[in-house]
């Protein structure tokens, strides 16, 4: 683990180990992908937690299952080392990390992909569960690819997600939120036309997941175009499930992990060449 604190301080409250049964949605666009955010989430979950370690030895063990429909293991190995200083090979040996490459897995059998997929993911989760004592965080990167390849419907995919979510502690979901993928929603200006099936399913899936999420972190490009000292805009908003957790907190205030109330925010960020990320308010210097 790195000695440097690689998690930008404004993001710290969001990146803690999420409360049980929660879903966190990260969205990106074509020009702005949330890889750095995913990497920091993984790092933060896997980092040794000082707050809990003293009280409960067993509860502190966490593991991450990363399922990607977008990148392969080599990419993530490199990115996690660069961005978060994590050594994947070591973590895999410790049985705290597991990677599933659905990009190539998916290519093998398109038709029976979904059941096969669920079984594979569940097997991996079960393997890690034994060593991590239940605290498995599932990270799904771009499962909406399944919709794009026409292998499933939005309804089936959300059911699959529910089934997977019931097996792990919490889930981090990465999705693309480009404008065309959201055009089939009620709020969009052109809602009288017939939409293509792809537009409909992606919009339905994305909006449903956002209404189930504890919070939504979305990155997008700067409205005014590319800039040298700003990579993009990060917006954190409260999802539809933010209220559920608030209710729980009132009753069980002792729960350490869930005591943070989700606050919305919007800030600019800069991913530097060495993988470090700076998050800063609009109008303030990025420190370059």
């Amino acid at each position: 683990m790195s000695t440097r604190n690689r998690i930008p301080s404004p993001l710290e409250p969001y990146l803690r180990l999420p409360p049980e049964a929660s879903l966190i949605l990260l969205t990106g666009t074509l020009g702005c992908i949330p890889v750095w955010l995913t990497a920091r989430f993984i790092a933060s979950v896997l980092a040794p937690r000082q707050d809990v370690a003293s009280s409960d030895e067993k509860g502190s063990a966490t593991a991450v299952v990363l399922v990607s429909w977008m990148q392969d293991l080599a990419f993530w190995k490199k990115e996690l080392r660069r961005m978060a200083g994590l050594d994947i090979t070591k973590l895999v040996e410790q049985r705290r990390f597991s990677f599933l490459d659905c990009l190539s897995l998916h290519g093998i059998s398109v038709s029976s992909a979904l059941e096969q997929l669920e079984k594979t993911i569940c097997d991996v989760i079960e393997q890690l569960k034994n060593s991590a004592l239940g605290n498995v965080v599932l990270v799904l990167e771009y499962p909406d690819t399944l919709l794009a390849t026409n292998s499933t419907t939005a309804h089936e995919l959300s059911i699959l997600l529910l089934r997977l979510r019931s097996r792990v502690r919490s889930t981090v979901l990465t999705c693309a939120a480009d404008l065309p993928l959201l055009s089939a929603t009620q709020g969009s200006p052109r809602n009288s036309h017939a939409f293509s099936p792809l537009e409909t399913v992606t919009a339905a899936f994305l909006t449903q997941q956002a209404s189930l999420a504890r919070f939504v972190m979305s990155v997008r490009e700067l409205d005014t175009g590319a800039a040298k000292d700003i990579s993009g805009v990060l917006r954190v908003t409260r999802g539809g499930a933010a209220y559920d957790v608030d209710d729980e907190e009132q009753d069980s205030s002792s729960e350490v992990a869930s005591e943070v109330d989700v606050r919305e925010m919007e800030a600019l960020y800069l991913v530097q060449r060495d993988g470090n990320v700076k998050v800063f308010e609009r109008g303030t210097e990025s420190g370059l």
Partner: protein
Amino acid sequence: MAPPNLQHRRTHNLLLISKLLNQRDASSPFTLVLDSLEQSGRPLLAEYLRRANASNVKTIFVSFETLRKPRAVDLFVSAWSQSLQAWQKEVMSLTKAHSSQREHPPFRTMRVPPDMLIVQAGKLLVFDSLNSLAATESANLPALLSSFISPTTSLLAVYHTDIHGRSSHSQENAYAPAPLTLLKYLATTIFTTHSLHHVLARKAARERSHVEPSFGLEEGIEGVLQGLGANGTNGVVLEMEHRRKSGRGVREWYSLPPSDSTSVATGKTRENVILLEDHPDYRSSDATLAEPPGGEAEAQYTFELGLTEKQRQDREGVVLPYFDAQKGGGEGGRILYDMGSEDDFDEEEDEI
């Protein structure tokens, strides 16, 4: 004429919402909650469940997208993991089972008033999302939903309006109405949830004759899913449409404050829902969102320029002299003059 009218509407509509939320007298057999990404319907569901618990109504939560059983719920059916027939059967058996159990009210009968007894037998069936059901069973959605409703069971269902109704492009139901249209037609009460932040921001813009801002998906910005201020913690704005048995509709805007633990602890529900017009942030028209009430303009002076509420009312109440002269028209010129005591009337002056 406005104040007495508002007063009347206030008492009337507050009674109505209290009746609806407490599910008294089976006032609304099918309540539809239309929510969006900008404002989830969860706080309203929580309010319903809280009140149901307080008045011993059995709550059955049918989940299509919720993983964990909410704390306030008595019975939880995870419909997402089952086939339609399976969960339908389960819900049916639960509604039946509890109605027979409830026929012998336990102790405490002495203390509850007679109308509470009817409530005790009632059940509240909650559907957390009708979207998936509407997508798969759009043709027999009305029949399916009405099969659950009985004199003792009322239905509370959420529909996410962001998700576009038509999910299939099948030919056979090309002429059928969209599921949302059907649901709106069926419902006896429709609640549309709005974020308080957005409502206030729109009002502020309206008052300055600016273009009303749009939030979230309506912004149309690449990569934006939700607007800032969505699902706020300081309450929900409810737009209600209630259809009476006579068919007359009542529309009203309410503000539902966030549920605080103190009111739960004390048990007895004091009505906390208010009309949107009575919300302190909505009422004060000159206090905008961004600037605090004591803005820069006031800080420059050492004396008070504004009027207090009482001063303004007094000022409005003053009847100006010769007020009646403004009303009476068409009589041509008329001089109204009251003789003062120091005036001495000079008869000759008139003749000049």
